[in-house]
């Protein structure tokens, strides 16, 4: 029970700090909206087939780059004044710190996605606000936030940490993102679930593997 309370305390702390500054959500939100606008004008999508092919990719590019901004901000908050050391000094299981930070990061990404999905519907006229797509977005976000939290903790100890995070994160998260794009595409086009189920399964497998590995190695990553 204490474990869950400690995870909740970390999430509540991140929410309280964000409510005070709104730095993370505003930067992620503005970035996401700009990317949507740029895609909308740059691609000049007129044919239905091209729209359906390009939109899932554009959606996930928006999500992961906005997520990257959030991860960097989350990391810098913990670096400031040695707060990460403060967290590591507490007598809690390191995995509670990992889950607290990862769930907090996922929560902020989901809030931005709640804005991004309707905007995609408006700009691209595609049926993205539907249960299957929302499920895929939630699954992709959880995996991305999990591995992103681990790797941002790793990047903390490097000199060019803001540059290092995407270099570390993109190759690791790429298989999961490909599965997310493919599954989103199938769900959005209204294909039978059986036709894109393998991508959904792959997404779930990557989520489980990435989060499990992150959970196991987090302790070794954050300690010198």
């Amino acid at each position, binding site marked *: 029970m*204490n474990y869950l*309370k*400690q995870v909740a305390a970390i999430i509540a*702390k991140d929410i309280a700090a964000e409510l005070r500054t709104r730095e993370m959500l505003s930067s992620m939100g503005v970035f996401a909206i700009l990317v949507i606008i740029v895609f909308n004008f740059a691609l000049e999508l007129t044919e239905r087939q091209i729209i359906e092919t390009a939109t899932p990719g554009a959606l996930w590019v928006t999500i992961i780059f906005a997520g990257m901004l959030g991860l960097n901000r989350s990391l810098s908050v913990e670096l*400031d004044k040695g*707060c990460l050391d403060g967290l*590591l*000094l507490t*007598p809690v299981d390191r995995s509670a710190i990992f889950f607290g930070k990862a769930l907090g990061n996922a929560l902020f990404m989901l809030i931005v996605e709640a804005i991004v999905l309707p905007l995609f519907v408006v700009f691209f006229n595609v049926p993205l606000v539907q249960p299957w797509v929302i499920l895929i977005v939630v699954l992709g976000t959880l995996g991305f936030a999990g591995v992103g939290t681990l790797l941002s903790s790793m990047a903390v100890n490097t000199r060019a940490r803001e540059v290092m995070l995407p270099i570390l994160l993109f190759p690791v998260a790429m298989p999961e993102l490909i599965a997310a794009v493919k599954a989103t595409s199938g769900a959005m086009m209204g294909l039978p679930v059986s036709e894109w189920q393998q991508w959904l399964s792959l997404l779930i497998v990557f989520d489980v593997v990435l989060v499990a590995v992150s959970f196991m190695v987090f302790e070794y990553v954050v300690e*010198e």
Partner: protein
Amino acid sequence: MLEVKSLVKSFGPTIALRGVNLSVPDGQFVTLVGPNGAGKTTMLRILATLSRPTSGTVTIGGHELPKGARDARRSIGLVSHQTLLYGDLSAEENLRFYGRMYDVADLDARITQVLEMVGLAHRRRDPVRTFSRGMQQRLAIARAVLHRPSLMLLDEPYTGLDQDAAARLETVMSSVGTEGRTVVMTTHDLERGLAVADRVVILAKGRVVFEANRDELDTAAFKEAYRQHTL
């Protein structure tokens, strides 16, 4: 309380600590002095369970590190030159967060108590980033003693403070941070380090090169030893 045996810490080819031995009984105040690069901060980070030793053993309150690190952390309070406080949160929110992480009983009353101890009760709802450096350091002490630790680790706590703020911090620490506790403090400041210590230890180039109890210490001889080992 604290037992360090043959402690070695290396970062790649750089050896920061070379077989340090240190034993600190309950209630003793030990000041660890040494020049930059002597290994003081590395030593304190290991004692605080933030860094793993390369070899050697560290035992805190009967818990051997790193295996017993989680239990040992309950008895450790750390004050460093960094405050470990979230600037966007208020003083009270910071203490509430740490109190929940340490599972402090009767947290509201304890927060009020430690804020009054460090003279910041009137600023409890203000964001920490609006505090002066001295006030932030006093709040860092409140954070460090919130869970009633039996071992206080003080890593250059006076860094960045002006004379007034340092004097006030010293008063707060003597009344709040160190009372009845085992304390290990690192500092460059020989005068201040000597004034508060029961025992002084000189660390140079990763080794303990001098140690003596305060009551049997010849200050001039100590300063000469410091000069010899740090030049």
